[in-house]
């Protein structure tokens, strides 16, 4: 038997605090970059296009990708009741990787649109196959099916790469994950998918807490755990696929940010989900700001920074709280 669940509502003061933190991150990120721009004395044409067409859309993409991956990760962890679950668990990463590789290798002259399109389709398809194959065996079956399909798809991808070696560098750069985007088309396209998907997860966040109970107990409460699980996984996968298609495979955010926010604000998904969104957005934008300024005018792939900075930060958090 459980006592009353902790209060779901976020303290308003906390909300203001986190919104302020996100806003501060954005302002700092806009101010920093490889191009040396002094905002106080006005912007010339080149500087204006740098800020409006490169820096700003990239920051928006970072906010969206970070928040989406973190919320999707929280959703995956909740419905699988597994702290090691992340949004790539059911094959979204492998599927997206294969989709992108197919374009890089087989149709290198295709429009720039083809890579995110195929990556998106690959991610959705891989998770759908895992869901169909593994569903009848319950949660464990789903995870195992996801792992098997990921392995199979990764092998296909490696095969394509090995037989078409000259494209390796490009594919590899995509696999590490990067936020480079030109103009607003990419971030806005991602938003089209992410807003409803993440919106649904945020709306359902209180129901995620119920997965503390086992499936039989959920049934007795009048909740269909399989349907809820599918809904959550569907929304999380849609968001993940849209993000992965735009930025490649950014490791770590979807796995660690939900844990970090759980450490900070406790066990209720009512709080974990929104705080994860804020932390994910801040973390990815901060990591990318470092990636594009630390060795300017050279860039680092942001995926390297998220892993290098995120792991120690998380360990610190783990010990501190």
């Amino acid at each position, binding site marked *: 038997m459980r006592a009353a669940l902790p209060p779901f509502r976020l303290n308003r003061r906390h909300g203001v605090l986190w919104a302020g933190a996100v806003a501060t991150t954005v302002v700092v990120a806009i101010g920093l970059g490889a191009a040396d721009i002094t905002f106080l004395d006005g912007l010339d*044409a080149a500087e204006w296009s740098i800020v409006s*067409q490169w820096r700003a859309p990239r920051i928006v993409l970072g906010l969206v990708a970070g928040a989406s991956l973190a919320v999707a990760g929280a959703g995956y962890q909740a419905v699988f009741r597994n702290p090691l679950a992340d949004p790539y668990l059911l094959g979204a990463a492998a599927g997206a990787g294969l989709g992108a590789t197919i374009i890089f290798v087989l149709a290198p002259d295709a429009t720039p649109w083809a890579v995110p399109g195929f990556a998106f389709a690959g991610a959705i398809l891989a998770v759908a196959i895992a869901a169909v194959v593994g569903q009848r065996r319950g949660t464990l079956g789903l995870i195992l099916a996801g792992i098997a399909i990921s392995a199979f798809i990764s092998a296909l991808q490696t095969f394509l790469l090995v037989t078409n070696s000259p494209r390796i560098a490009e594919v590899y750069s995509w696999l590490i994950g990067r936020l480079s985007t030109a103009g607003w088309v990419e971030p806005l396209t991602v938003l089209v998918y992410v807003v409803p998907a993440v919106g649904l997860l945020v709306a359902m966040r209180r129901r995620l807490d119920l997965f503390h109970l086992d499936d039989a107990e959920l049934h007795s409460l009048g909740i269909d755990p399989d349907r809820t699980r599918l809904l959550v996984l569907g929304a999380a996968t849609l968001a993940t696929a849209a993000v992965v298609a735009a930025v490649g495979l950014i490791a770590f955010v979807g796995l660690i940010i939900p844990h970090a926010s759980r450490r900070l604000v406790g066990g209720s998904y009512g709080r974990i989900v929104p705080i994860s969104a804020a932390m994910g957005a801040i973390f990815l934008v901060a990591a990318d700001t470092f990636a594009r300024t630390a060795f300017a*005018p050279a860039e680092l792939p942001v995926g390297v920074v998220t892993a290098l900075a995120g792991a120690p930060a998380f360990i610190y958090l783990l010990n501190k709280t």
Partner: protein
Amino acid sequence: MNRRLTWLVALSLLGSACGSAAADPTTTITQPPQETAASPTTTIAPITTSSTTTAAPEAAAFPVSVTVGGSEVTLEAAPTRIISLSPTATETLFAIGAGDQVVAVDEYSNYPENAPITNLSGYTPNIEALASFNPDLIIVAFDPEGMIGAAFSGEVPVVSQFPATGRDDLLAQIEQLGALTGHLDEAVALASDIAARWDLADEADAGGASVYIEIDPTFYAASSNSFVGAALGGLGFTNIADAADGGGGGFPQLSAEAIIQSSPDVIIVGTDTGTTAADIAARPGWDTISAVINDQIIVIPSDISSRWGPRFVEYVEAMAAVANRPVTVNR
């Protein structure tokens, strides 16, 4: 013969796998695997002829001994069954008149057209497939962990001609292939012809015009530390990627912001990227870049600029023409 060779391959693979680097005493040509060269156990056949002096095409010049990349290769007779796993070497072999001696080239050796192209891979070489051609000389540009050299050690000489580090290396590699194939005269002539054309091109002066050499659409660029970038040094270009290449790797990834702000006067892009001048001009904010305004986006055939062979000088000449072009810098 074929079967025997295959056995030898299998045995030497086994030998190298076991880590016993015992050199076969009957070996005439020894290719110590890179770095792990065990000098006390290697036996090098007595060098009878110096290759640097005269050499009639074919026969008379042999046996010949050539030092390639620090290791000595000795051929008793002119090779007649050459495999080239290097598109660069393939071009050179045909350019110096050794094309008739080539039996197979790798999948990317698409020039010249009459090269015996196969599906052999220079990246993931298949030892058995190589052996099946019964080669008497193998030329590679890439030898992961010295695998090919180890596999054929003692049976077939394997020559590694890695990407040239500069103009001297490019010319030296041509002469090495000339000596190894019995076409030293042609090779020397080709090398001096290239050197002369290069010298002529170097008279151009871009007057410090800035250049951005795009390697892929995510803004990986070639700095002056790369071969393709260094070749522009004599033409008076300054490379905007140099500031980003503190590590000296030659190919840093640039920030688009930095590219726009440094406003390069010339942009070079290879055909293998699939990027066109129109693609570049259409990038947001790039319409403020000098090269875009003045129509100085140069699309170079990648097969010419990415191979360090006899045609590379065409790239230098093309860029010399750009350097000489009167450019009104209009920012």
